[in-house]
């Protein structure tokens, strides 16, 4: 649906990373982990297009500013990378945003009681937090999180507060183990860690490595992809990925926005 949101808070949680909490219509309480939003950062034509963000959290709160009872909020986690996100970072309580949400297909949470592994890189962690909140209700959850440096590893405390066991890897070794998060994941699996499902979100090379691990270990795996997109509703066809059986003669392109952003890793061609 399309709606106007009001900014509740917009806090820098690490160098260049922000958590933006905003009001949402009550329908958003039904948003599924893994779904995303398209934010129009201002009303001008610069930047022209909306920006997509995974849903970091949805919940409810009692506002101090009006006697309206319990309200729904939605939160995104973002990194300032360009003009659009820089404009977002400048927003304050009371500012308004035009939103499309919830969009796309979310994660299939799997059966209760099963062990679950989450793998996230950088802001790819965003949809995994909302997912973890759901999963911890009836499953044991392990989080493998990676980043370039310690300031790129976000919100660990929030995950730990949920009871999630976390493993951290950084490229420069400033936090957790030095190396790739997928190397840490693979090592843990070799040492006997098990899970019934892997859920991953992050940069494409990380997802490709996770998909390869899932292939080797035969653990079912769902990945949430990022892509350039213009519309978010399946019209522009700018965000497509190749489906598993895609060939030039028998095209099988999937829209990240509409068919995803969450896919079973086996649905896609990994190149």
């Amino acid at each position, binding site marked *: *649906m399309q709606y106007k949101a009001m900014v509740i808070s917009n806090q820098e949680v690490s160098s260049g990373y922000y958590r933006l909490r905003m009001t949402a219509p009550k329908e958003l309480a039904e948003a599924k982990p893994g779904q995303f939003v398209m934010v129009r950062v201002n009303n001008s034509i610069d930047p022209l297009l909306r920006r997509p963000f995974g849903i970091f959290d949805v919940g409810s709160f009692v506002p101090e500013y009006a006697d309206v009872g319990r309200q729904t909020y939605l939160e995104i986690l973002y990194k300032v990378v360009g003009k659009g996100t820089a404009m977002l970072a400048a927003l304050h309580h009371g500012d308004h945003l035009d939103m499309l949400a919830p969009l796309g297909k979310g994660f299939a949470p799997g059966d209760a009681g099963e062990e679950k592994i989450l793998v996230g890189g950088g802001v790819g962690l965003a949809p995994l937090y909302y997912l973890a909140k759901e999963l911890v209700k009836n499953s044991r959850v392990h989080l493998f999180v990676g980043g370039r440096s310690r300031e790129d590893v976000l919100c660990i405390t929030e995950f730990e507060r949920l009871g999630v066991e976390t493993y951290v890897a950084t490229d420069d070794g400033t936090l957790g183990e030095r190396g790739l998060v997928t190397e840490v994941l693979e090592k843990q699996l070799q040492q006997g860690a098990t899970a019934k499902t892997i859920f991953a979100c992050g940069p494409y090379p990380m997802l490709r490595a996770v998909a390869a691990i899932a292939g080797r270990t035969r653990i079912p795996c769902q990945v949430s992809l990022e892509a350039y997109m213009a519309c978010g509703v399946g019209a522009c066809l*700018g965000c497509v990925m190749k489906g598993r059986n895609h060939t030039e003669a028998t095209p099988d392109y999937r829209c990240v926005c509409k068919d995803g952003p969450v896919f079973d890793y086996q649905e896609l061609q990994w190149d």
Partner: protein
Amino acid sequence: MKPDMSVEIAGIKLRNPVMTASGTFGYGKEFADYMDLEKIGAIITKGLSLRPKAGNPTPRIVETPGGMLNAIGLQNVGIEAFIAEKAPFLRTINTPVIANLYGNTLEEYGELARRLDKVQEVAAVEVNISCPNVKQGGIVFGTDPRAAAEVVAMVREATIKPVIVKLSPNVTDIVVMANACAEAGADALSLINTLTGMAIDLQKRRPVLANVTGGLSGPAIKPVALRMVWQVARAVKLPIIGIGGIMTANDALEFLLAGATAVQIGTANFLDPAAAQTIAMEMERYLADNGIADVKELIGALRY
């Protein structure tokens, strides 16, 4: 009093002059959750080819100042799947549907038009001659007046439905192209398609788009589009559908003044999935506020 917003293009009655541009509105259904499809003048489908088309590798789109470049490569379900899977939904909508079609060869254009001729829910065809054709020795239908005329004549012969020809701005003189299409039997002209452009990633020293070049759309191209609509309107008798960077009702009304009978909303649909409906509504408000009884009074009413 409520202003009369209706216009007519090649015998198709539109409740208002606002259409959605091919390639920016899917097959209509994608937008049904966000707007009332019966509050706009017409829906134009994604470009249809004879067989399903994969389209280009990614990245396919990139934002540029005041616009965006796209090189989707005409990914579409193909004419058969359109008729079987997409047309039934469109049948339920009381708004004219115009099928945009694209062929690799002259014969393919004819074949597409023949197949669409029998499809009841298609009110008219819009012929896309704005994409390069390699099969004919690099001739581009949209930039060679003789080749364009041949395509139009071929389609004209294959269907009794109104034929709209969508013109490319990537030519030296768009009036020459417009005249060639008019003489070959076009019922209406729509312009402009995207302007060829390019974006470069300085750090990587690579083109941003996998296709290297792409089509520029959005507010950045509006002045070019207005100028071309104005030029063609003065030179050709056919009704014109103005396209190019229309984001607001005011933009749309400017195209009418330049000589367009109707307009198409393209890139704006991406920013705001209800854009076409909002623009139609606000055009009507402009007329009411300014005491204009009939939107047709504005067509070509530019003062000098």
